[in-house]
């Protein structure tokens, strides 16, 4: 009994120590790890960028975790990460809580699309007010006259609409409700816009996957997901009527058109939903990196270098992953902003404990 006991303990100890000892592949060189957290929507793009950058600079690891836009904002405020990322810009209130200044740096463009699952219907048009009423629970059946009017050729069934939304707070939600707030005064008054809202009706799915899964499996349902997601999963999504009155389906061109028509302020915090322009897709959005204006010397240098690379080389990689690149005018603005990032010693919040 005792010897089995002893044998076992030594086995376990050996396993632990060998695991700890054997896994120091980084011991040979000093590696700098830069940690970031935030939006899920641009995660595929960011993971590609950070991987490519690591290939060019093997002593730099940029570790990005997509915990959601709100999470990114909060961690940046707490100072536990070196940068954040968000689909919904920080409000003045939130910025005031951070020690030091935060810069919003736009990276790519994306869009939310209305995905649906109605048998026999391959394409649908929606207007902003119709979408708002569906998500408010005022339009409850697929063959409602409001829907039929804008879809004369579709065979709409007499079935109740099952609404699906995000259960977790997210930038995807923010963009969607931001748009609904603009096109429906009732939505704006009753529900409002934030990363997490009090949905009047519907099922909650966790993550894009949760929403898409529910829509795919529930007949006569409707939900919203990011364009990239819908494309990758071959989901049916509809066209939305833009400010100019045209029904536009989301794609790289229409999303870029939405940004082209927008006025970009100096701090880049702008909403481009319901953008003007005949070709613009109305539920588009920028996504931003949240960078401290002041960073510790080594990290600041790396961050600046990465951002410059992102604007030059990184933008060329966006289309393969179905993201729209930044418009040219925005790119030149960003380059100037990057110069204002300092790598002096007194940093915002993210410099302790290194």
């Amino acid at each position: 009994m005792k010897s089995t006991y002893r044998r076992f303990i030594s086995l376990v100890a050996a396993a632990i120590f060998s695991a700890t000892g054997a896994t120091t592949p980084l011991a040979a060189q000093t590696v700098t790890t830069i940690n970031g957290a935030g939006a899920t929507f641009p995660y595929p793009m960011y993971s590609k960028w950070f991987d490519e950058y690591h290939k060019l600079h093997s002593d730099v690891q940029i570790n990005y975790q997509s915990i959601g836009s709100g999470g990114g904002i909060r961690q940046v405020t707490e100072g536990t990460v070196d940068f954040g990322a968000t689909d919904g810009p920080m409000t003045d209130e939130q910025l005031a809580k951070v020690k030091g200044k935060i810069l919003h740096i736009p990276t790519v463009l994306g869009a939310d699309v209305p995905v649906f699952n109605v048998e026999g219907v391959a394409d649908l048009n929606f207007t902003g007010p119709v979408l708002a009423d569906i998500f408010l629970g005022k339009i409850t059946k697929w063959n409602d006259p409001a829907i039929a009017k804008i879809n004369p050729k579709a065979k709409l069934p007499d079935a109740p609409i099952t609404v699906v939304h995000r259960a977790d707070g997210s930038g995807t939600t923010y963009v969607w409700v931001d748009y609904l707030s603009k096109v429906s005064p009732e939505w704006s008054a009753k529900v409002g816009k934030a990363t997490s809202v009090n949905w009047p009706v519907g099922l909650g799915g966790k993550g894009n996957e949760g929403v898409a899964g529910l829509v795919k499996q529930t007949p006569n349902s409707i939900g919203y997901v990011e364009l990239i997601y819908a494309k990758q999963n071959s989901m049916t999504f509809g066209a939305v009527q833009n400010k100019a009155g045209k029904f536009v389906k989301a794609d790289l061109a229409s999303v870029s058109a939405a940004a082209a028509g927008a006025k970009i302020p100096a701090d880049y915090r702008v909403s481009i939903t319901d953008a003007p322009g005949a070709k613009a897709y109305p539920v588009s959005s920028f996504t931003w990196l949240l960078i401290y204006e002041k960073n510790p010397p080594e990290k600041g240098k790396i961050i600046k270098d990465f951002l410059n690379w992102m604007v030059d080389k990184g933008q060329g990689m966006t289309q393969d992953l179905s993201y729209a690149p930044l418009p040219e005018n925005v790119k030149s603005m960003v380059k100037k902003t990057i110069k204002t990032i300092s790598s002096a010693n007194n940093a915002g919040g993210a410099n302790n404990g290194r």
Partner: protein
Amino acid sequence: MPAAPITVAEKRTESKNQRLTGPRERASDRSFRWFVEGFGWLIIALAVTIGIALAIGSRLTWSKFGASFLWASDWDPVADKFGALPFIYGTLASSALALLIAIPLGVGSAIFLAELAPRRISDACTFLIELLAAVPSVILGLMGIFLLVPAVRSVEPTLIKFLGFLPFFKGVPYGVGLLTAGLILAIMILPFITVIAREVLLAVPRPLKEAMLALGATRWETVRGVSLPYARSGIAGAVFLSLGRALGETMAVTMVIGNTPKISWSLLDPAYSMASVIANELTEAVGDLHLNSLIAIGLTLFGITVIINGVARLMIYRVSQRGAA
């Protein structure tokens, strides 16, 4: 043993080399006792600290809403209005459903494994059931989404057709909902109940059982008359342990409960549990009141666990007083 009785004086001089049966304790024994007691206190300190941390982290909510937070049912992050009732309902209802399913199954399996199956098969089966306990909840969540939800969705129309007159079975066949959450929780707690109940049943003293059999009872009557009453407190302990597990289960439930903060009688409707709302919204809660309210729900869960454990302790204490355990 010495042949002649030892006087008190002689006892004292021999104290260094002999173990005394009196109240004196050696220094080494005392330090050892304190040493291990320290770790016991560590547990208490942990529980208390967590409780305090939760209380401090949620003070905004309590100061704004007071105790009415617990029975308010609005959850509106935009309007800054929060109420915990839908989540309390979801957690309690899904756990109750899970117990309803898992206790008969678990105790039944335990009886089979302890009393009827040959020892080898019993050991093998117990090993397999312990494996079920070891399945991580993330993996159960995956199974939930891809297997359980579609399966429940295909069964629900039948339930609605035949049992729809009961308020428990009205509604739309979503697939996700209270029923599915209860089922997945049942899968999670079933092995705990089974294994512990089996252990307890095996610990029933043989003479008791043999006496019963000698009197002409059947095996089942022995189980019913002797083993189960003897094992009652142990099984109750297993039930409460499982209830604790079910109340706090996060990932698997989040993926199948529907995540809708509404209270309804129907098992087919989606619901929301306390642990799920924390998991879903914690990473994204930006507003202070929102964050505080989520932590307040954590504190409520903590409070419910404390109460349930208190009741369990009381029950087990009473039973042991009666001498059945």
